[in-house]
């Protein structure tokens, strides 16, 4: 694990020094800072990608850096940077009727939820901040923090639209945790482990070793997981909490500037996390899709990132293709379709495991 | 002989030749009647040619009354109007005010609700849709509420008018008969201040609730300010 490596490395470098606690703190902090920088950079790229992909679907060009003076670079590459600079230094409004402490707290909680999940995502055999033996369980648990933040944001804004957004999102995220969990249970049954690395280890040997192709029940589990993941990250067709044409901007209606940027960023961070879990659990994690092609540990980050990017691209693609569901249809889909199918899936996989031995 | 007279004679001759001799006989002016009859005789003998068929233009109508210039539509509407009037007179004898029913029927406001109910339910008329309801400020302190009715089933129209004085601008509401009248009447109230009795929700619809005056009355004066914002007619009043 990264923390251990840094700790050992520091110990070796300064072998005479005795303050091991300081090394430990540094060893813990360094990956965190790394994660933060990574999320920020990834957020910029993801926003740019969303702008460009949506523009492509819409027959547009998207940001082209056309403008006056110091424009946004070639092909508008600097557009997200400009957005970030602007948002950070915009006036921070706290409505006088808002519940002040909760209002301030909400963006941080949602960001923490997305940020802390990153420590358990494996990018390579050794490129993981903390290889917990309950990694996948940890991510699912921490991921639910978002719902608290969204309810807080919706409630504390003292705005009816925000309240509706928070209310919808509470129902939505809590419900969709279940199908997502059930479809991951299937994976855990197969690998008999909750550790992310061990799940990846189970899927060695190229594309056909992936859990997705392990048995006929797995594609169903993957589809359920992916759709539930869309719902958990509030993406279209499940973007009810912030549906623009209904609730103005949902739970972020009252947020401006920096705080809004946090919500914005954590949406993309959450997309990354759920895609990473999907890749880990179903698509072979950081391993190459071909047994003997670029399958070294050096390429693992590349494979992981490209698989995640693919899933994120699909999410953006879906967002700009389909309309939005209604609240009751959303619940119907979750409780009456996904959960029964998911449970049946668990049953099926259990029999499969017994039969196959 | 004036030109006008000649035209009248031509018209009568045409009518007579078409078999309507009563029209000739019924004419009051003896001179005209005689000339027309002699002309008909001559035409029938083949001495004279038949006068050209000519429509009477509105300015030349003897009484100077309003006549619409719609061609086919006109005939159709006339007949509907006449039909409505005939039936209306049977049912509500004293409610019609005007005598010419070419373009519209003028009603008294008192029994309007009953008449409207009847107009919608009467199977031969069956005016199931209120096309348009509008208010108008006619001169002499009179406000008028006009209704254009249409029947989807029979595809015919009729226009009804109800006049009230400004001081007592009250007309029964027909909101319950044609639901669309709800908003139409609110709009007329908003613009002209005609009060519709029995309307469930008579508020201003387009202008703000605290607006002053009735904008479509001819003597409307704009208010000076609204919530501190100047409402000037010309830009001179600014700054």
């Amino acid at each position, binding site marked *: 694990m990264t923390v251990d490596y840094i700790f050992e490395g520091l110990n070796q470098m300064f072998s005479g020094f005795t303050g091991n606690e300081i090394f430990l703190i540094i060893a813990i902090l360094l990956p965190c800072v790394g994660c933060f920088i990574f999320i920020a950079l990834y957020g910029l790229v993801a926003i740019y990608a969303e*702008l460009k992909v949506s*523009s492509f679907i*819409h*027959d*547009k*060009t*998207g*940001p*082209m850096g*056309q*403008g*006056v*003076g*110091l*424009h*946004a670079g070639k092909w*508008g590459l*600097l*557009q997200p*940077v*400009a*957005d*970030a*600079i*602007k948002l950070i*230094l*915009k*006036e*921070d*409004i706290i409505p006088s009727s808002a519940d002040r402490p909760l209002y301030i707290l909400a963006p941080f909680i949602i960001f923490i939820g997305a940020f802390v999940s990153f420590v358990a995502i494996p990018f390579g055999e050794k490129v993981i901040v903390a290889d917990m033996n309950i990694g996948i369980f940890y991510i699912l648990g921490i991921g639910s923090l978002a719902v608290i933040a969204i309810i807080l944001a919706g409630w504390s804004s003292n705005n009816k639209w925000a309240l509706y957004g928070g209310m919808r999102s509470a129902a939505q995220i809590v419900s969709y945790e279940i199908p997502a969990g059930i479809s991951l249970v299937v994976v855990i049954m197969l690998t008999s482990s909750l550790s992310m690395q061990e799940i990846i280890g189970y899927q060695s040997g190229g594309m056909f070793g992936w859990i997705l192709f392990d048995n006929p029940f797995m594609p169903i589990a993957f589809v359920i997981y992916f759709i539930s993941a869309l719902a958990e990250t509030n993406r279209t067709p499940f973007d009810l909490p912030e549906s*623009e044409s209904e609730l*103005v*901007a949902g739970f*972020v*209606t*009252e*947020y*401006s*500037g920096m705080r*809004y940027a946090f919500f914005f960023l954590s949406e993309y961070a959450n997309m990354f996390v759920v895609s990473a879990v999907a890749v880990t659990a179903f698509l072979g994690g950081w391993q190459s899709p071909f047994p003997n092609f670029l399958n070294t540990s050096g390429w693992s980050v590349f494979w992981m990132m490209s698989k995640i990017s693919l899933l994120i691209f699909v999410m953006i693609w879906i967002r700009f293709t389909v309309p939005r569901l209604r609240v009751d249809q959303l619940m119907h889909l979750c409780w009456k379709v996904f959960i029964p199918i998911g449970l049946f899936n668990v049953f099926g996989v259990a029999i499969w495991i017994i039969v196959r031995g | 002989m004036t030109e006008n007279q000649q035209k009248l004679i031509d018209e009568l001759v045409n009518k007579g030749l078409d078999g309507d001799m009563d029209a000739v006989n019924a004419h009051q002016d003896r001179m005209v009647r005689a000339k027309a009859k002699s002309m008909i005789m001559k035409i029938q003998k083949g001495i004279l040619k038949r006068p050209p068929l000519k429509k009477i233009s509105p300015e030349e109508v003897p009484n100077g009354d309003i006549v619409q210039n719609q061609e086919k539509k006109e005939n159709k509407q006339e007949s509907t109007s006449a039909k409505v009037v005939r039936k209306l007179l049977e049912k509500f004898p004293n409610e019609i005010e005007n005598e010419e029913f070419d373009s519209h029927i003028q009603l008294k406001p008192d029994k309007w609700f009953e008449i409207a109910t009847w107009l919608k339910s009467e199977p031969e008329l069956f005016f199931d849709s209120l096309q348009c309801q509008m208010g108008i400020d006619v001169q002499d302190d009179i406000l008028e509420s006009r209704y254009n009715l249409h029947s989807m089933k029979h595809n015919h129209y009729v226009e009804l008018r109800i006049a009230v004085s400004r001081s007592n601008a009250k007309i029964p509401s027909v909101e319950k008969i044609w639901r669309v009248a709800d908003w139409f009447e609110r709009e007329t109230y908003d613009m002209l201040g005609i009060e519709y009795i029995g309307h469930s929700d008579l508020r201003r619809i*387009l*202008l*703000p609730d605290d*607006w002053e005056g009735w*904008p479509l009355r001819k003597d*409307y004066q*704009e208010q000076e300010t*609204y*919530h501190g*914002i*100047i*409402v*000037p*007619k*010309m*830009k001179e009043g*600014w700054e």
Partner: protein
Amino acid sequence: MGLFTNKFQDNIIVEKLDKLLSWGRSTSPWFFQFGTACCAIEMMAAAASRHDLKRIGMIPRSSPRQADVMIVAGTVTMKMAIRVKKLYEQMADPKYVVAMGSCATSGGPYWQHGYHVLKGVDLVIPVDVYVPGCPPRPESLIEGLLKLQEQILEERPLTRKMA
């Protein structure tokens, strides 16, 4: 942001920061979808495929809190004027207003007999750029927005203002 506004002496670092800041602001002016009348359709056309406001970094937002530029597209009536003012006050600083079309600039064709029409949105809120036309073509709207960007680019938000 209010903490730092116009609080610094003019020096080389502040100048560079100022430039970076105003670059950020001018490059990503998110606009507030505030269509009232005919001009709103042209604003939509400007944001849609052919003209594409995203090219110059403008993204529509429907909440006033997150928008930087308010494009008042169309006639503002007396009934609406109070709301326009409220919406403007809800926007976070720095905020800019573009009056699109002759109605928003001066009352347009309704200037004479329009008893219920506000004769120019500048009577209730400050306007940065006026775009004339009835309605202005998307090209002229884009021209106006580029002018606004130029204006923002020249701002020096951090530097202390001369007394």
